[in-house]
């Protein structure tokens, strides 16, 4: 029988192929928490006194972020609040919203639900049912970022924490490279700081935690999470790239780590060569920061209105 390489207990719950480590439940939970807190310090993601707004979908990733940042909140190192975005995906989003509310209430943390309908007078279901020109993830990503940024300013948050994990990050690196979006690559990293003060700094505390370990963590910690897949995600290019990386990882278990490490080494050079200096202004329609006359959320919103009128 295999035993935990840390404490010798024989109830092993994970065998990490990339490191050879075998861990029992307690050592896995403790080791994962320590790794995330170490990354927070190493990448200087959080400063004492920060107000961190967690983008809490109720899924495994954001619930894990909340669970670990709560250690800092309980020690009065940070203030914390949570926001859940309801995109309007019938039969999918309701459970996540309910779970997010339960966690925020359990921890005594401020929680707000913001929906697409109130913000953009449409839902993701309506967008996808119309003759929309772009993929669901494109609309969703732009609208969600708009809401998160606006909400962060509204509540005075100094950081927005998202649940992006190692799989998400390597997918983003590969996707942007394969599509030739080199400028987008310059914005990938543990911490995103914009030149515009109207954009709140975004942090990714789980950037070096594989997605499966995020799932294992929430189950080992017995945290309630929403574990269904978004009905629109399978159509995306990200989904295809994700599948490709998972297939590669079976015979090459270190591939996601080496992709990330290699990218982090290259990034200063890519940034030096390709980062564009935007003069951030304000969107003439909503007042949010925009590199052009209008922000992308308003451009998309106008497109959708025009589509509606042409039907």
């Amino acid at each position, binding site marked *: 029988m295999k035993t935990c390489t840390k404490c010798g207990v024989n109830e092993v*719950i994970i065998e990490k192929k990339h490191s050879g480590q075998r861990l029992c439940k307690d050592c896995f939970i403790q080791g994962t928490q320590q790794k995330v807190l170490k990354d927070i310090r190493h990448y200087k993601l959080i400063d004492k006194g920060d107000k961190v707004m967690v983008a809490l979908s109720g899924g495994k990733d954001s619930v894990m972020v909340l669970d670990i940042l709560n250690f800092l909140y309980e020690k009065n190192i940070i203030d914390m609040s949570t926001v859940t975005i309801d995109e309007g995906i019938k039969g999918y989003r309701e459970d996540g919203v309910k779970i997010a509310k339960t966690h925020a209430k359990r921890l005594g943390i401020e929680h707000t639900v913001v929906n697409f309908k109130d913000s953009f007078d449409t839902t993701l279901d309506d967008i996808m049912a119309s003759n929309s020109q772009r993929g669901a993830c494109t609309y969703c990503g732009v609208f969600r970022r708009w809401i998160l940024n606006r909400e962060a300013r509204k509540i005075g948050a100094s950081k927005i924490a998202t649940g992006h994990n190692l799989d998400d990050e390597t997918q983003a690196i590969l996707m942007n490279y394969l599509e030739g979006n080199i400028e987008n690559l310059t914005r990938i990293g543990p911490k995103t700081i914009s030149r515009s003060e109207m954009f709140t700094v975004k942090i990714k505390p789980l950037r070096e935690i594989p997605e499966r370990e995020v799932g294992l963590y929430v189950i080992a910690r017995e945290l309630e999470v929403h*574990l*269904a*897949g*978004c009905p629109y995600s399978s159509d995306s290019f990200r*989904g295809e790239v994700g599948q490709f990386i*998972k297939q590669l990882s079976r015979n090459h278990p270190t591939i996601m780590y080496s992709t990330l490490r290699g990218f982090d080494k290259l990034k200063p050079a890519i940034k030096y060569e390709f980062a564009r200096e935007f003069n951030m202004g304000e969107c003439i329609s909503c007042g949010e920061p925009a590199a052009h006359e209008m922000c992308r959320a308003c451009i998309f919103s106008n497109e959708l209105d025009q589509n509606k009128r042409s039907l």
Partner: protein
Amino acid sequence: MKYTLIIGDVKESKDIKKGITINHILEEIDLPLETVVVKKNGRIVIEEEEISHGDVIEIIRVIYGG
């Protein structure tokens, strides 16, 4: 000799073949280990765990679309 397999809301009784492990079940139902967490009798186990008569195996999908 039987064990119970639970995947989501579906629960079924299955026959045990000699020396069957979690790995064999995952191969049979075509779910990659990298996308699931498996419990045996309520305890999280690794893929090499053997299954015996009366065991309850719960497969929890933690990754979708990958």
